[in-house]
C-alpha cells in the first residue's frame, strides 16, 4: 500500500557522530514510517539503535513524559500550578518579569543555558545574541560545561583550537590508537565502528580505562588504571617518551614551545615511581609509551573519562603534550580526538553559547571583536566574561549581595535538575531563583521548578545546521510538521526580544546563519548551498567559493592555532581526586553512558524500542566479589549512598568492573546518579568531577517492599510529567 511517502535525509539528533539518516515519511498522516542509514561522511550509511529507532518520541507515545504543546505560566506565583496560556500572554509575562529583574538587579542577574541538542546552531546563535544584545550580559553557557569544557580549555592552551584535530573517518587509518577515558561503544557507536575497523586493518590499540570497556577488550595493551589517576599515567607516558629518546626532535624544534622547561619537570613521573598508585605495572606503561611513539599515525581519543575530573583541563593538556612530543599533529590520520558527546555540543560552542566567547571563538574581552559585534547588533555589549553554568548554585546559595545573585534563569533544551551534579544542592538553588523559564519539548525534571514553560519544536520538526564532533556542519531538515501550539526556539527568542524592546525578525534559519557567518571568519565559507552540495563542511572554512571545501584535519604542517603558530608544552603536577574512598564509603562511584539512552532521556525514554532495552531504576555495575561480600545478586534492588544523597537501583555483577569500583548510567530518575555525585569543579573549566566519588552499597532485606517503592516512585514522577496512566515500566 504505497501512499504519499516521501524520503527526507537529515542528521541524527543523538551523539556527536553526525550520522545521516534517510526517513520514509507518510506526509498525509504526518508520521515517520522508517529510518535507513544515508551515506553520510561519518556514518557511511550505518546507524546505531538510536538512529534507527530514536525518532519514535515524535509520535508522543507518552511513555515517560508528555509533550508540551501550549505555553504555561504559574499565574499565582511559585507553588501555584502551571496553567496553559496564549503565546501573547506568556511572552508578555516573561518579558515583563525579565525587565523588572534587570531593572532591580542589573543584567548580570540573568543567566541562560543554551541547548546543545535538537534546536541547532541557528537557535544557539540566537540564544547568545538574545542574552548579549537584549539582556546585556555574557551570562550564557551550555552543557559543554559539564562535559568537554576541559577539552576546549586544555587544547586552547596547548594548540589553540579546542576541537577534534582529525576527523572521524581518519580514525580507521590510524596505526596506533591511544584510547583514554573514552567508551565509544556506549557513547558513539558509529565512532566505535572506526575503532574496530582500525583494529581489523592492523592498528594497535592502547586502552587506558579502569573498567574493561569494549575497546579495552580488543586492545593490545589495556592499562587498567585505578580511577582518578589520568594525569599520573599521562605524565608517566611523557616521561618514558623523553627518557627513552622517543621524542620527535625535528617536530618539537620546529613547531613546539617550552620543551626545555617541560622535560625536567617530568622527573618525578618515572613509570616505576607511579606504577603502584596508577595500579598498572611500570613495564606496561613503558610498553604503551613506546607503542604510541612508534608511529606518525598515532591518534589519541578521549571522552568524559578525561574531562569529568577536577583535573580535567590539565589531563587534556597532557594528552596534547604526548601528540606534540611525538610529532603526531597536522597530517592525515594523526592527532587528538576529544569526541564531543551531544549531536550539537560542538556547534553550541561554535555559536558562542559560552560566557567568554562570541560565535567563532572570538573573545568577549577583545575590544576590536566586541566593537564588531556592537556594530552588527546595534547595541553596547558587556566586556565582562559571564558566569559558567556550574557556578549557578553557588551564585544563588552563597552570594549574599542580592545584586550579584542570579534572579532569572532561562533554560533552553536542557535538564539540569537531572544532569547536574549534587542534585539536592541544585534543587535548593532552583527554589530560590525568582524566575525560571524552561523552553523545551517535553516536561522534564527541571520543568517542576519552572515559572514559565515555553513549548518548542523538536528535532524532526524544524530546519537547522548541526556541527558534529569533528567540526562538520551538516543540514538538518524538517521531517514532519510540528504539533499545533509550538514554535521554533529561534522564533520564541525573536518574540521575547521584540517584547523587550529589541525587535528581531528572521524569515528562516538561513537568514540567521548568514548573519552569523559574516561575523565569524572561521565559518564564513560554510554557506547553506555549500553544505547542501557537499553534504558536510568541516570548519575552518573561510571562503565562500566552492574551492574552499573546509578542513579535514587541523594544524597542517605544524601550524598551530596559537598566537605565534607554535604548540605549547604545558606541564601540570598530578593531584588526587577530591573525595577518596574510606571505611564509611568504601567503593568508588563513576557515572557512565547507556548506549540506548541519551542525556536526561526525555527523548529516548519516549521511544518504545529503546525503553524496552533498559528502564528504571537502572543498574549499578560492580565486581562479583564486592557483590558476594554484600550478599547481593544480579537484579536485586540495592540502596547506594554517598555523602550527598542516596538512590535505589539494581545490582549488576560484572567482572568488567575492578574490585572496589562501581559504575552507573546517569539518565534514571529513581536511580539518579547525580544525587550521589560530587559537585567539586575543575578550577579552570568548572567541569564537575562526575567520574569519581565515594559511595557505599547497602543490601535491601525486603525486596518486595523495595520493588513496590520503585514502582510507586516511577508512577509518581510520571504523573508529575503529565502522564495519566502510570502503566508498565520499572
Amino acid at each position, binding site marked *: 500500500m504505497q501512499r504519499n511517502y516521501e524520503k527526507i535525509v537529515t542528521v541524527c539528533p543523538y551523539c556527536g557522530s553526525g550520522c545521516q539518516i534517510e526517513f520514509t515519511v507518510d506526509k498525509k498522516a504526518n508520521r515517520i514510517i522508517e529510518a535507513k542509514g544515508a551515506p553520510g561522511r561519518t556514518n557511511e550509511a550505518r546507524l546505531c539503535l538510536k538512529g534507527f529507532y530514536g525518532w519514535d518520541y515524535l509520535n508522543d507515545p507518552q511513555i515517560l513524559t508528555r509533550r508540551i504543546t501550549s505555553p504555561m505560566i504559574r499565574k499565582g506565583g511559585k507553588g501555584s500550578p502551571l496553567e496553559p496560556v496564549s503565546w501573547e500572554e506568556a511572552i508578555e509575562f516573561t518579558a515583563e518579569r525579565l525587565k523588572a529583574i534587570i531593572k532591580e538587579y542589573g543584567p548580570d542577574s540573568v543567566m541562560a543555558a543554551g541547548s546543545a541538542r535538537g534546536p541547532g546552531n541557528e537557535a544557539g546563535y540566537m540564544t547568545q545574541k538574545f542574552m548579549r544584545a537584549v539582556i546585556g550580559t555574557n551570562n550564557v553557557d551550555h552543557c559543554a560545561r559539564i562535559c568537554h569544557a576541559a577539552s576546549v580549555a586544555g587544547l586552547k592552551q596547548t594548540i589553540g583550537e579546542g576541537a577534534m584535530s582529525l576527523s572521524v573517518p581518519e580514525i580507521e587509518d590510524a596505526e596506533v590508537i591511544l584510547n583514554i577515558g573514552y567508551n565509544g561503544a556506549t557513547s558513539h557507536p558509529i565512532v566505535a565502528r572506526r575503532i574496530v575497523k582500525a583494529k*581489523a586493518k592492523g592498528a594497535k590499540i592502547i586502552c587506558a580505562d579502569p573498567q574493561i570497556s569494549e575497546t579495552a577488550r580488543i586492545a593490545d595493551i589495556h592499562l587498567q588504571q585505578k580511577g582518578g589517576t589520568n594525569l599520573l599515567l599521562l605524565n608517566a607516558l611523557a616521561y618514558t617518551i623523553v627518557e627513552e629518546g622517543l621524542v620527535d626532535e625535528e617536530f618539537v624544534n620546529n613547531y613546539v614551545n617550552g620543551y626545555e622547561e617541560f622535560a625536567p619537570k617530568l622527573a618525578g613521573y618515572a613509570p616505576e615511581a607511579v606504577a603502584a598508585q596508577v595500579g598498572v605495572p611500570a613495564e606496561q606503561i613503558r610498553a604503551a609509551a613506546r607503542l604510541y611513539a612508534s608511529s606518525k599515525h598515532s591518534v589519541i581519543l578521549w571522552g568524559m573519562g578525561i574531562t569529568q575530573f577536577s583535573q580535567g583541563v590539565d589531563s587534556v593538556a597532557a594528552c596534547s603534550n604526548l601528540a606534540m612530543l611525538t610529532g603526531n599533529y597536522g597530517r592525515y590520520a594523526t592527532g587528538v580526538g576529544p569526541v564531543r558527546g551531544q549531536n550539537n555540543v560542538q556547534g553550541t560552542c561554535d555559536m558562542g553559547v559560552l560566557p567568554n566567547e562570541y560565535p567563532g571563538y572570538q573573545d568577549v574581552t577583545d575590544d576590536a571583536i566586541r566593537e564588531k559585534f556592537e556594530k552588527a547588533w546595534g547595541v553596547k555589549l558587556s566586556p565582562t566574561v559571564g558566569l559558567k553554568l556550574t557556578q549557578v548554585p553557588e551564585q544563588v546559595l552563597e552570594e549574599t549581595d542580592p545584586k550579584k545573585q542570579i534572579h532569572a534563569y532561562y533554560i533552553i533544551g536542557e535538564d539540569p535538575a537531572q544532569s547536574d551534579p549534587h542534585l539536592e544542592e541544585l534543587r535548593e538553588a532552583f527554589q530560590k531563583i525568582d524566575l525560571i523559564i524552561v523552553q523545551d519539548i517535553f516536561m522534564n525534571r527541571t520543568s517542576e521548578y519552572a515559572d514559565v514553560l515555553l513549548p518548542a519544536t523538536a528535532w524532526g520538526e524544524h530546519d537547522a545546521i548541526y556541527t558534529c564532533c569533528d567540526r562538520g556542519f551538516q543540514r538538518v531538515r524538517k521531517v514532519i510538521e510540528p504539533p499545533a501550539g509550538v514554535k521554533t526556539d529561534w522564533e520564541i527568542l525573536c518574540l521575547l526580544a521584540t517584547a523587550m524592546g529589541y525587535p528581531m525578525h528572521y524569515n528562516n534559519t538561513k537568514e540567521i546563519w548568514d548573519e552569523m557567518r559574516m561575523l565569524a571568519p572561521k565559518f564564513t565559507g560554510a554557506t547553506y548551498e555549500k553544505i547542501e552540495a557537499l553534504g558536510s563542511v568541516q570548519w575552518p572554512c573561510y571562503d565562500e567559493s566552492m574551492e574552499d571545501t573546509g578542513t579535514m584535519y587541523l594544524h597542517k604542517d605544524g601550524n598551530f592555532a596559537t598566537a605565534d603558530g607554535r604548540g605549547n608544552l604545558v606541564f601540570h603536577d598530578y593531584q588526587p581526586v577530591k573525595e577518596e574512598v574510606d571505611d564509611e564509603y568504601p567503593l568508588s562511584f563513576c557515572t557512565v553512558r547507556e548506549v540506548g539512552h541519551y542525556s536526561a532521556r526525555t527523548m529516548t525514554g519516549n521511544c518504545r524500542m529503546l525503553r524496552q532495552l533498559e528502564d528504571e531504576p537502572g543498574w549499578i555495575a560492580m565486581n562479583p566479589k564486592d557483590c558476594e561480600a554484600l550478599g547481593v545478586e544480579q537484579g536485586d534492588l540495592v540502596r547506594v549512598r554517598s555523602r550527598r544523597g542516596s538512590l535505589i537501583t539494581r545490582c549488576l555483577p560484572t567482572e568488567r568492573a575492578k574490585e572496589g569500583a562501581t559504575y552507573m548510567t546517569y539518565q534514571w530518575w529513581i536511580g539518579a546518579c547525580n544525587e550521589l555525585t560530587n559537585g567539586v569543579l575543575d578550577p579552570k573549566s568548572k567541569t564537575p568531577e562526575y567520574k569519581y566519588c565515594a559511595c557505599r552499597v547497602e543490601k535491601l532485606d525486603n525486596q518486595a517492599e523495595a520493588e513496590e517503592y520503585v514502582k510507586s516512585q516511577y508512577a509518581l514522577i510520571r504523573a508529575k510529567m503529565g502522564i495519566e496512566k502510570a502503566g508498565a515500566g520499572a
Partner: protein
Amino acid sequence: MNRFVKGNPLLCIGCRTCMVACVVSHRGNGIFTTDPDSEDFFPRIHVIKTKTKTMTVQCHHCENAPCVTVCPVGALEKGPNSILLHEERCIGCQQCTMACPFGAIQMKKLSDESGVRVVANKCDLCAHTEEGSPACVSHCPTEALTYYVEDSIADIASQKNLQTARKAWAAKEGQA
C-alpha cells in the same frame, strides 16, 4: 546446506541494535503506532558479554539440529536451507531449549485469537519479513554480523584451501 547468521566478537561493540532490529523486523513498522505498553519484546538474537568477550548468540541452523530431534510434535523441522519453527504446532515443552548447545532457543509469550500461549522463539533468518534477509545483519553498525549462505561458505573454504597451499609452497621454497 543451511544458511545462518554469525557474529564476529572482534567487531561487536555490544550495542544491541541487532536485538531491536530483530523485534521490529518481525513485528513490522506497525509497532510504532500502538499502545507502548501493549507490545512484547522477544528478540531472537542476544548480545552476551563476559569479562573479555562480547558476541551475539542466535540459531546456527545446524545441519543435524538437536532441536529437531527432540521436538515431540514436529514444530521444529529441517527446511530446504534453514531450521523452521512452526509456532502453531509448538506446545511450549522447552525440550528444544534444553537440547540446543548454544542456548539459541528461548520461550516467548504469543498472543493470538486463542489467547496467550508460550512457544519457542528463534532466528528464522527474517524469511517472512518485508526485507526477506536477516535484519540484524543489515542493521549492525559495525558490520559484525554476517549472513552465511552456501556460496559464501564455499568461498571461505576455497580461499582457505588456497592459503593452505600457498603457505605450504612458501615453506618449501624457504620464503617467509
